[in-house]
């Protein structure tokens, strides 16, 4: 099968075949990251901009390195140090970048739907690197790549997503992606951080962590954003940690070969205990490597050849 889309906006729109194509393409890309000379001439003459309206370390540098490993020319823009700070609209920023000859725009934006809007305004490929509380497709793809790598397949696995489901774009993308690939997704977190009607997304909802962890194959721990506590959505970090923190004892409830994932950065001692984060079940560092591989795969698929764009 061939990639036929102009953009990558979210996993909600992708077919299982498209997801598999991305993950299959990421396998040889990971081999390149392991080489002494991490460089191929594949995207020579292609250009990529990372346009970030929110702070980020790993997603942004991961895209930047992915582009560089494939020989694309990469430029980084942050909202605070560009014309955005002078009030330029998203559409005008996009058109300016297009006029400069940019082939791919990787964008993070605090507004849900911003990536989709930009994709409609400009002919360049747009990759959503996180939009509001909507989707973070590349994070979910790297989670799925890691799961597939460790477990062989996603079908039939019991995957627990624990934490602030309400505000998490990582959780949404993971739910859309994993359910499509045949996994059983369980979400667990405080009732104040659980979206209403989330069952409609095809997941099982739990409020007691122990119940959710029973027999799980994968535990994906979300980062608690400390500002949520200040908004009063849960009483205290200590209480959150006591009820929803992943520790060694709770891990015993999962399958004996269960793996632990976390999108980072971690609040160690809050949502995840130190020993678990650095234990032999944790693949958190490998997720970072896999993130570069998955992003290389996407850059290749979106720019490596002419495509017949479908509307998403």
């Amino acid at each position, binding site marked *: 099968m061939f990639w036929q889309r102009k953009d990558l906006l979210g996993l909600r729109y992708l077919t299982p075949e498209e997801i598999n*194509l991305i993950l299959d393409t990421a396998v*040889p*890309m990971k081999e390149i990251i392991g080489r002494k000379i991490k*460089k191929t001439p594949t995207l020579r003459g292609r250009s990529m901009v990372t346009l970030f309206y929110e702070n980020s370390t790993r997603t942004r540098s991961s895209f930047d390195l992915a582009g560089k490993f494939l020989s694309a020319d990469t430029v980084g823009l942050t909202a605070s140090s560009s014309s955005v700070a002078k009030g330029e609209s998203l559409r005008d920023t996009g058109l300016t970048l297009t006029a400069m000859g940019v082939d791919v725009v990787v964008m993070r934006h605090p507004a849900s739907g911003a990536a989709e809007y930009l994709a409609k305004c400009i002919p360049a490929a747009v990759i959503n690197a996180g939009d509001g509380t909507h989707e973070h497709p590349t994070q979910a793809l790297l989670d799925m790549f890691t799961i597939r790598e460790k477990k062989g397949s996603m079908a039939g696995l019991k995957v627990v997503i624990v934490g602030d489901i309400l505000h998490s774009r990582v959780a949404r993308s993971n739910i859309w992606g994993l359910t499509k690939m045949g996994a059983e997704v369980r979400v667990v977190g405080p009732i104040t951080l659980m979206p209403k009607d989330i069952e409609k997304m095809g997941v099982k909802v739990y409020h007691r962590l122990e119940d959710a962890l029973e027999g799980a194959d994968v535990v994906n721990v979300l980062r608690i954003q400390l500002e949520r506590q200040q908004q009063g959505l849960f009483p205290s970090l200590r209480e959150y940690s006591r009820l929803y923190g992943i520790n060694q004892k709770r891990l015993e409830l999962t399958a004996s070969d269960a793996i632990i994932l976390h999108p980072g950065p971690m609040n160690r001692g809050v949502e995840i205990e130190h020993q678990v984060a650095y234990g032999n079940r944790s693949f958190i560092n490998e997720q970072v490597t896999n993130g570069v591989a998955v992003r290389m795969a996407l850059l290749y698929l979106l720019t490596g*050849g*002419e495509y017949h764009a479908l509307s998403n």
Partner: protein
Amino acid sequence: MNELDLKEKAQILDDKGMRRAMVRIAHEVIERNKGVDNLVLIGIRRRGVPLAQRLAKYINDIEGTAVPVGILDITLYRDDLTTLANQPQVHQTEVTFSITGKKVVLVDDVLYTGRTVRAALDAIMDLGRPEVVQLAVLIDRGHKEIPIRADYVGKNVPTSRKEVISVRLTEIDKEERVVILEGIE
């Protein structure tokens, strides 16, 4: 050109002919390199891979030494990605040994324009610095577009550009022969 729109014009090699050609190449490789010390074989995906594995077997039969075989995927090194209608699927390069200081024999089924071999040379240089790189092909069909020649050739077959050489290997195609195909009028 889609292979479905082509008809078979002639058979160039049968299974015995292919075996003889590869055994002869094995002898030539050993002779030119004065043995198999420091020798490694790298097959270009797809059909170069089984051919490299066969060459390793024939070399082992003659010299009693197992020569390492690697697999090279050159998709990321192609110079025509932007002009293709659909980008080709990338597969993994599997060269598990160091090639620095080694005598590398690159193996492919057909030598045509030379662009695949150019891409393969770029890919090899990114993996390390070999002492020497030699090229072995089952068929050389002419029409080179860049100055690349094979060191070992199973059979030279002058062709027209309208024709297609199809190497059929048991491992991939469930049959063992080389044929010339041409377009149906």
